[in-house]
C-alpha cells in the first residue's frame, strides 16, 4: 500500500491509499461516521484484481477539515472525488463504490455531466440519492396517490432517516449526537464485530464534523431534481438496513439507463458483514463495464437489472427451482410463480412433462429451463445445483415438490419400496434444501424454501406407513430448517395439501396385492381424489402465499386443516379415525 496526501480544489488535504496497482481503478468512498478503514475486508479481496484506492473524505479520519459549512456541499465532495481519481488513475477514470454517505455523494456525482467521463461505473451500498428521497416524498404525498399507501412508503424511508431532520437544527445536533445518536450508531455498529480501525479512533470527532454534511446538503431533499444518472449503476441494499429502504429506488429504472438493484440479507454495514459478496458484486460490474462487447454479464448481475420484468409483480427478477414440476402441484406452482414474474428452473424425471411445463411458463413471459434429474440421486442433484448456480446464481425460491406414493400394509412394504419412497420424498427434499440453502447463504440472498409435506404428515393413516413417514419427516425437517435458516433471512414453509387431485394416485404403487387388486385400488383412490375435486392450483396459491408471508406450516384443504387441529386437540380421536380402512379388503 502507498499513502499519499492530495490537495483538493479548496485546499483541504485528503489522505489517499493505493492498495494495489493491477487493472482498472476502483475507488472506495466510505460513509458517515466511518473512515476508509471500513473497507479493509473488501480491499483485501479486491487487491490483485484491480487498482484499489481508498481515501478519508473531508472531515473524517486523517483528512483535513474544511473551515465552513460550504466545504461540505455536494459540489465540493464531487470535486474531491474527481481530484482523487485524477491523482491515482492512469487513464483518469475509476469505478466508484460508495457506502452510506459515500453512496449519497456518489449518486450526486453520478448526475453531474462533468463527472460522466470520470466515473466508469458506480456501486452504491446502503445509501441512496437525496433527489430520490425527495421525489419519494412528493410522489407519495401527492393527493392523486392512495394516501395510506403513500404514507406507508414515506414512513418506511423517513423513519430510517429521522436524525437527518434533527441535524438541521442549529445547536441541537451536537446535543443529539452527544446524547443519543452516537450511542445508537455504536449499538448498531456493535452488531458488527468491532475490530482495529473500525469504528475509527476518530469516531467521536468524525461524528460531529460530519453533521455538516447533512446541514450543507439536506435542502436538496425538499427541492429534488430529476437528473439522469450517467454511469452504469448498481445499488446493493441490506433487507434489514435501518437507514435505507428499497422504496428509495422506485424511480431508478427511469433515471438510470443501466441500473441494477440487489437486495441481500444484511444490515447497514455490509462492507463489514458481507465483504465477499460486495467484492464479487463490484467485480461483476467492473468486468461487465470494462470488457466485453457482446459478452453476457454475470448471471447474478443480469438478474438484478432493474429494467427486467414487470416491477409490479412480487417475484419479478427472481429465480425459482421447482422439483416435480412436470405434473400436479409442482407444475401448478411453477405456473403460479411464473405468473408473478419468477423465472423457473423446471426439474422433473419426465422430460416431456418438464418441457410441457416450460412451454406454459415461457408463455407467461418469463424464462424456463428444463432439467431431467432424479431428486433422490445425490450426485445428480449436486450437478443440478452447480448448473443453476452457473446459469442464474443462487435461486430465490426452491419448491421441493417431487414425490411418489406407495400404499399397502406395513408388513407388505418391502425394503426396496422403502428405499424408493424415502429416496424421492425425503432425500429429494434434503438434497434440494441442503444444496440451494447453501447457495442462498453464500449469496446473502433472503430466499425461501417450500417443502411439500402432507396432511398424512400428522395423520397415522393405515396402509400408508411409508408415505406418511416420509411426509412426517419432511414436516419436521422443514421446521428445523426454518429455525436454523432464519439466521440467514431464509424462510422455510411446509405445505400439507390434503386430498388434491394431482394425478399422484394414478401412479401410486399398491404393495402386497396382485396387479388386478392394485388396479382396482388405483381406480378407487383416483375416483376418490377426483370426486374431492380440489385442484393443484389452489395448493399453488397457498404456496405463493406461504412464500410472500413466510408461513411455517400450511395445511391447505379443509380436511388437512381439520386433521392438523385434531392431531393436536385429540390425538386419540385422530388415531381412531386414521384406522378406518378406506380401501376395503
Amino acid at each position, binding site marked *: 500500500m502507498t499513502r499519499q496526501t492530495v490537495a483538493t480544489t479548496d485546499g483541504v488535504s485528503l489522505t489517499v491509499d493505493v492498495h494495489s496497482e493491477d487493472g482498472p481503478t476502483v475507488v472506495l468512498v466510505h460513509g458517515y461516521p466511518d473512515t476508509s478503514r471500513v473497507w479493509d475486508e473488501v480491499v483485501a479481496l479486491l487487491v490483485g484484481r484491480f487498482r484499489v484506492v481508498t481515501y478519508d473524505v473531508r472531515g473524517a479520519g486523517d483528512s483535513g477539515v474544511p473551515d465552513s459549512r460550504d466545504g461540505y456541499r455536494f459540489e465540493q465532495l464531487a470535486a474531491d472525488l474527481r481530484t482523487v481519481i485524477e491523482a491515482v488513475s492512469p487513464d483518469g477514470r475509476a469505478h466508484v463504490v460508495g457506502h452510506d454517505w459515500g453512496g449519497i455523494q456518489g449518486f450526486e456525482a453520478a448526475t453531474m455531466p462533468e463527472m460522466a467521463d470520470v466515473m466508469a461505473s458506480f456501486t452504491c451500498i446502503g445509501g441512496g440519492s437525496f433527489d430520490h428521497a425527495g421525489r419519494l416524498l412528493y410522489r407519495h404525498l401527492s393527493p392523486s396517490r392512495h394516501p395510506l399507501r403513500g404514507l406507508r412508503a414515506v414512513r418506511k424511508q423517513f423513519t430510517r432517516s429521522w436524525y437527518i431532520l434533527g441535524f438541521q437544527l442549529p445547536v441541537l445536533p451536537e446535543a443529539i449526537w452527544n446524547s443519543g445518536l452516537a450511542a445508537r450508531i455504536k449499538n448498531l455498529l456493535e452488531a458488527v464485530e468491532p475490530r482495529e480501525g473500525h469504528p475509527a479512533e476518530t469516531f467521536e470527532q468524525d461524528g460531529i464534523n460530519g453533521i455538516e454534511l447533512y446541514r450543507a446538503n439536506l435542502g436538496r431533499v425538499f427541492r429534488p431534481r430529476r437528473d439522469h444518472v450517467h454511469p452504469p449503476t448498481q445499488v446493493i441494499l441490506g433487507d434489514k438496513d435501518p437507514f435505507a429502504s428499497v422504496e428509495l429506488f422506485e424511480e431508478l429504472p427511469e433515471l438510470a439507463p443501466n441500473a441494477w438493484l440487489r437486495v441481500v440479507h444484511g444490515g447497514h454495514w455490509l462492507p463489514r458483514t458481507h465483504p465477499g459478496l460486495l467484492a464479487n458484486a463490484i467485480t461483476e460490474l467492473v468486468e461487465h463495464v470494462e470488457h466485453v462487447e457482446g459478452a453476457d454479464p454475470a448471471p447474478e448481475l443480469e438478474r438484478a437489472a432493474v429494467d427486467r420484468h414487470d416491477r409490479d409483480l412480487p417475484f419479478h427478477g427472481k429465480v425459482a427451482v421447482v422439483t416435480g414440476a412436470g405434473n400436479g402441484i409442482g407444475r401448478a406452482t411453477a405456473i403460479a410463480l411464473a405468473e408473478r414474474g419468477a423465472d423457473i428452473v423446471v426439474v422433473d424425471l419426465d422430460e416431456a*412433462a418438464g418441457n*410441457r411445463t416450460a*412451454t406454459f411458463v415461457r408463455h407467461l413471459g418469463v424464462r424456463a429451463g428444463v432439467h431431467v434429474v432424479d431428486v433422490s440421486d445425490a450426485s445428480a442433484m449436486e450437478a443440478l445445483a452447480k448448473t443453476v448456480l452457473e446459469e442464474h446464481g443462487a435461486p430465490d425460491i426452491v419448491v421441493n415438490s417431487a414425490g411418489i406414493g406407495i400404499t399397502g400394509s406395513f408388513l407388505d412394504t418391502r425394503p426396496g419400496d422403502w428405499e424408493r419412497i424415502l429416496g424421492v420424498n425425503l432425500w429429494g427434499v434434503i438434497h434440494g434444501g441442503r444444496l440451494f440453502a447453501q447457495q442462498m447463504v453464500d449469496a446473502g440472498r433472503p430466499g425461501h424454501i417450500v417443502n411439500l409435506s402432507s396432511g398424512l404428515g400428522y395423520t397415522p393413516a393405515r396402509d400408508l406407513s411409508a408415505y406418511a413417514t416420509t411426509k412426517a419427516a419432511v414436516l419436521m425437517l422443514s421446521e428445523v430448517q426454518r429455525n436454523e435458516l432464519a439466521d440467514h433471512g431464509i424462510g422455510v414453509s411446509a405445505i400439507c395439501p390434503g386430498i388434491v387431485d394431482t394425478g399422484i394416485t394414478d401412479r401410486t404403487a399398491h404393495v402386497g396385492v396382485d396387479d388386478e387388486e392394485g388396479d382396482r385400488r388405483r381406480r378407487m383412490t383416483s375416483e376418490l381424489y377426483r370426486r374431492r375435486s380440489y385442484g393443484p392450483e389452489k395448493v399453488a396459491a397457498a404456496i405463493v402465499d406461504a412464500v410472500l408471508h413466510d408461513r411455517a406450516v400450511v395445511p391447505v384443504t379443509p380436511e388437512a386443516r381439520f386433521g392438523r387441529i385434531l392431531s393436536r386437540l385429540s390425538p386419540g380421536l385422530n388415531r381412531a379415525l386414521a384406522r378406518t380402512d378406506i380401501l376395503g379388503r
Partner: protein
Amino acid sequence: MRETSASSASPDSRARSASRPLLDSDLDGFRSLQQLAYECAEAVAATLEPGVTEIEAARAQRDWMRDHGVTDFFHLPFAWFGDRTALRWRNPLRFFPTNRRLTDGMPFILDIAPIRDGFTADIGYASRLGDNEVHQQLLDDLEAHRALILDGVRSRATFRDVYRSVDRLAARQGYDVRHKAYPGAVIAHQVGRVGDSPPRFVLGFGLKGLGLLTRTAAESIPAGWNPLWNGTKLSDHAPPPGLWAVEPHLAFKGVGAKFEEILVVTTDDAFWLDDDLPHVRRWSSTPAVASA
C-alpha cells in the same frame, strides 16, 4: 347397409326427413357439407391479417358460404380472437363476435354450422397468426382427445364418463376444459336432418337447429338420453345412435383451441364421419408428441 338411427323420435310432420334412419347416402351429404365448412374456415383463415375484427371474420365466413350456395345455418358463424378463444366471460352475450382486432401471435377460432339440403354440419377451426408456443402445444394435444373420445364411445362407456375422461386428460395436460362455457356445458350436441323452411335466427342460433334439439330432447330425455352431451346425470347413458358434433375446447390461461366435427354413433360402434380434415391431416403429417 349401415343404419344409424335416432329412432326413438317419432316422425314429425314439419321435418319428416329428420327422423328417418340415416343411410350411407345421407352420410355422404353430411360429409360433403362438413368438408365445405372446413374449406370455408381455411379460406377465411387465410385472409385474416392484423387489424381484422371478429365481426368482419364472422361476416367473411357467411359471405363465403353464400358464394358457395349456403344461406341457412345451424347457428350463425362465430369468431373468437386472442384471449377470447379461452371463452372466459360471465356474460353469455360475449359469445358473439366483437370488434376485437387480430394481432400477431394471437390464436383464433372460427366456428361455422351450415345447413344445406336438409343436411347440417358444425365445425370448429383453431389456428393463429404468427408464433405461439402454447397454442401449438394445444393443437398437438387435441389429438389425444380425439382418440380418447372415439375409444370411449366405442367401448360403450356412458357419455358422462367419456366427458369426465376428457376432463381428466385435459387436467393432466395442464389445461382448463372450456367447453364448459358453451350453453349447457356441452362437449357435443346432436345434429341431424332438418326441414327446408326459410332461415330464421334467434340470437344467432337458427330456429331449425334449436327446433331439432328441442324436439329430440322432448322425446329422448324421457327415453333416457340427452341430445346435449355434457357431464350431468342426464348424459349418464350408453352412446345413443346418431350424429354428434363433438367439440372439445381446451385452454391455458388466455389461449384456447378446439376442433369440432361429426362423430357417427351406431347401435354398437362409432366412427368419425371424416378423417380427411385439416387438423387430422396435420397430426398425421407430424409425429405425435408425448402426452401429459
